[in-house]
């Protein structure tokens, strides 16, 4: 029990402190790729601090729902982060079949935010909210199928277990189904992190917004909570992709031993995770630079690609006798 609380606290600290860093690295990389200098890597930290100290302006039609939603979003994303194996091949609160709970915790966050933004009574809020829910409807089955691909390869349904098994398999695990699963996970990651070609996180045109459209009426500390949670969501999606699709080097849970050894293993695992997450983040930045945002109508085709890749991976895996 004590181990669990410690592990949970450690993972939360990891996510909360590193998520803005990863966002900063991605933004700077995107800037460089686009021929600019890009903002500093520490800019998201400065933004969060600024937002926390600002006065809020709330819409006149806001009620307790408007206040509660950022907390629910924040809590849901972080609770989901506790289900993802990050520094070790085990999640602090992981259990068999926790991927389903992960998907629904993310859905809870989306639900809360999409609902609360309608309090403002503005058309832009409705637009962002309706697009986000429609996108969610497509992303959830794609994410489930993609994760199922990895489950069916390793025979267990706990995310930590799957990561551990894949990591233990080493380079022999790099089969065609694995690569297809990696591609599918990448497509879903683009959708879940709200990046081009699904959504443009840098746009200022309300008519092109999906995620940002829901945040238009939020300001001050509430916006800080939402922004931090969104960065945490990006971190957890990338960590999931890193530990499932690029699992090599993920340390297994050490048996009972000196606390120092445990801390060292966790720290080295966290360092390796950061390297992988940053690498995936740079890949996302590159994809954002070379792609254009697709029309909302084309989203089913885009996410259908992930579904197709995942399905192919499963079929080939079964054909290979696994």
């Amino acid at each position, binding site marked *: 029990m004590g181990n*669990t609380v410690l592990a*949970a606290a450690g993972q*939360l600290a990891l996510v909360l402190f590193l998520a803005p860093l990863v966002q900063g690295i991605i933004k700077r990389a995107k800037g460089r790729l686009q021929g600019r200098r890009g903002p500093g890597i520490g800019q998201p930290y400065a933004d969060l601090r600024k937002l*926390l*100290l600002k*006065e*809020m*302006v*709330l*819409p*006149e*039609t806001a*009620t307790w*729902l408007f206040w509660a939603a*950022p*907390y*629910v979003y924040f809590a849901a994303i972080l609770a989901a982060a*506790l289900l993802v194996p990050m520094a070790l091949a085990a*999640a602090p*609160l*992981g*259990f068999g*079949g*926790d991927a389903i*709970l992960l998907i*629904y*915790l993310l*859905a*809870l966050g989306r639900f809360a935010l*999409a*609902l609360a933004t*309608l309090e403002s*009574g*503005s058309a832009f809020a*409705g637009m962002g*909210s*309706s697009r986000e829910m*429609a996108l969610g*409807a*497509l992303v*959830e*089955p794609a994410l*489930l*199928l993609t994760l199922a691909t990895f489950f069916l390869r390793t*025979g*267990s*349904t*706990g*995310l930590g*277990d*799957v990561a*551990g098994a894949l990591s233990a398999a080493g380079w022999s695990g790099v089969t065609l189904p694995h690569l297809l699963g990696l591609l599918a996970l990448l497509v879903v990651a683009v959708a879940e992190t709200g990046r081009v070609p699904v959504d443009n996180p840098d746009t200022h045109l309300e008519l092109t917004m999906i995620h940002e459209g829901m945040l238009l009426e939020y300001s*001050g*500390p*509430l916006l800080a909570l939402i922004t931090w949670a969104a960065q945490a969501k990006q971190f957890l999606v990338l960590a999931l992709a890193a530990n499932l699709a690029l699992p090599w080097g993920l340390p297994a*849970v050490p048996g009972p031993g000196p606390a120092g050894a445990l801390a060292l293993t966790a720290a080295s695992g966290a360092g390796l995770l950061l390297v992988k997450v940053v690498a995936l983040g740079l890949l996302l930045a590159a994809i954002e630079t070379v792609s254009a945002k697709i029309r909302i109508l084309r*989203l*089913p085709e885009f996410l259908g690609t992930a579904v197709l890749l995942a399905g192919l991976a*499963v079929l080939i895996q*079964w054909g290979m006798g696994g």
Partner: protein
Amino acid sequence: MEGVTPGNLFAAALLTYLAGAALPFLMPGGRRGRAGYVAAFAASALSLAAALPALAGHRVELALPGPVPLLGSFHLALDPTGAFFALLIAGLAVPAALYGLAESSPPWQVAGFNLFVLGMLAVVAAAGVLPFLMAWELMALASYFLVMAEHQRPEVRRAGYVYLVMTHLGTLFIIAAFLLLVRAGGGTGFDQLRAGAAALPAAQRSLVFLLALAGFGTKGGLIPLHVWLPRAHPVAPSHASALMSGVMVKTAIYGLLRFALDFLGGGPAWWGGTLLLAGAVSALGGVLYAAVEGHLKRMLAFSTVENVGVMAMGLGAALWAQAAGRPAVAALAVAAVLYHAAHHSATKGLLFLGAGAVHHATGALNLEQMGGLIRRMPRTAAWFLAGAVAISALPPMGGLVSEWLLLHTFLQMAAALPASLAGAVALAGAAVLALTGALVAATMVKAYGVAFLGLPRSAAAESAREAAPAVRGAMAMLAVADLALGLGAGVVAPALGRVAAGLVGVPATGLSARAMLGVVAGGAAGGGLAPAALLPVAPLAALLGLAALGWLAARRYGRLRWRFGPTWTCGILPDPRMQYSAAGYTSPIRLMFRRLLWPSKQVRVTAGDHPLFPHAMEYTGGVLPVYDTHLYRPVLNAVLGAARRLRRLQMGDTQIYLIYLFGTLLLLLVLAR
């Protein structure tokens, strides 16, 4: 107390329902409705007390003198399956009766309510064909009277007519299925039906299954037999709609369980495949129609179609897994279906009662005429939000557990049956479930956001008042019940697992909380550091803790100052018409699924002085009711056409009719030789 057995309690409950049906006609003036609903409340409480021990395995039996002397006595018995459904029925009847106390219903409505619940309880308690069919018919007729509450309106009469025809069509199929089993078993008791089914050849067993599927599918609302549901449920009074959507469709699931698993004891894989396919079509179709629907109650009715489809998918998976030699997976699937039935009863009841409260407050049921109700009726809005969260299968409500169990079942089936059609279909089923779940969430955000949030769109919405305490109390009961289903999964799941194990025929030890909810001891296969005692409640507790943490952090490190300002609307004053409408909210979904929905729109422009400044614009949009136009209308036209042609035989001349009689008699004599 020796005299008080569950059987006595059950008999007392049934008598109290009958009293509740008679009282409204006997009591004076204003107290009529109240007495009837109080009786229903008390009777439902008695039923709950009788059904709980029956769920644990105590046999509850009643032998009532049958209404028709020649056909012997009625046997009612509650086995664990029937007891579970009886708990659902009585459990929803309690808040519905409470809601009824706030209504001013005419006496025949109150009587109908009591007889309706009595009928449903008798259906799940029936131990023979005759009690079953008579209770089935009582249930249908009583609900017909409830549907016809506002019979002065033509669309209500039409809805009642369609309902009556469809329910009797379904009953016809059920009678046929029963007849086949009775003929094989030589008697009308359920034990004899089981023996008879075992003796039937495979082709006849499949026929019985298909007939049961058609019959119970009609009552449950599986597409394409669902056309009565979106007509009948919206026009009935809200507590009646709550019962119809919440538990009447569950009797259909009960019937399918009885036939497919109990009497027939499972069958070939294609039974499961058919049920899975029908369920998937209903789930997806139901949720898509709900997403584009602007009438609050009709939207909830389509959502019921979707949920029945989901349960049918679970049952299909169970049958297929059983046929493929995986009875443990089958039992898990049945347990998931039962969980979903319990959760859906609570949630749908809650939402319909909320819709009724909104209807009373605003006089409207069209989402486009509501708005801002969260400020006018805050407590009702809070409970309705709980219902919206619950039906979207989000934590911490019960829907998450049932959705989790269903998805886990499909994934287990795919893992247990690799490289087979069953495995592939299981994966596809999981994807369909995830898709429909997310579409439900979008639909509920639309409904709640448009109805309760923002600015009021009409004068009626502006002048809404809070609902009566009885209504709020009823909604609170159901919300708490669903929350208990969510947090108490460790207790409820094994109980349902025992019922499921009994139905499928596996020992119940394989369905402990640990096995069902996927929690294994830390460190071993399960991939977590958490000890088993934490169960999946741990992430939910983390949720709350983190929310509190975030709140504290914001208070301590943020400077929480705020002021209010009007919403930015590009420089013009905010107007309710600037908000998203319900139709607009789901237009991305309508466009993405246009090949399934066939949306149509029509814009009429009344020109003004200048072409660029029209006087008025009128937009009419909708989706094609494809089952009405492409299935029922052609069949009806064919039947009417045939009837018209046959009418030529009716000359109106007695002598021609005598010739017909003589000819028919001759033909029969030749055939019977």
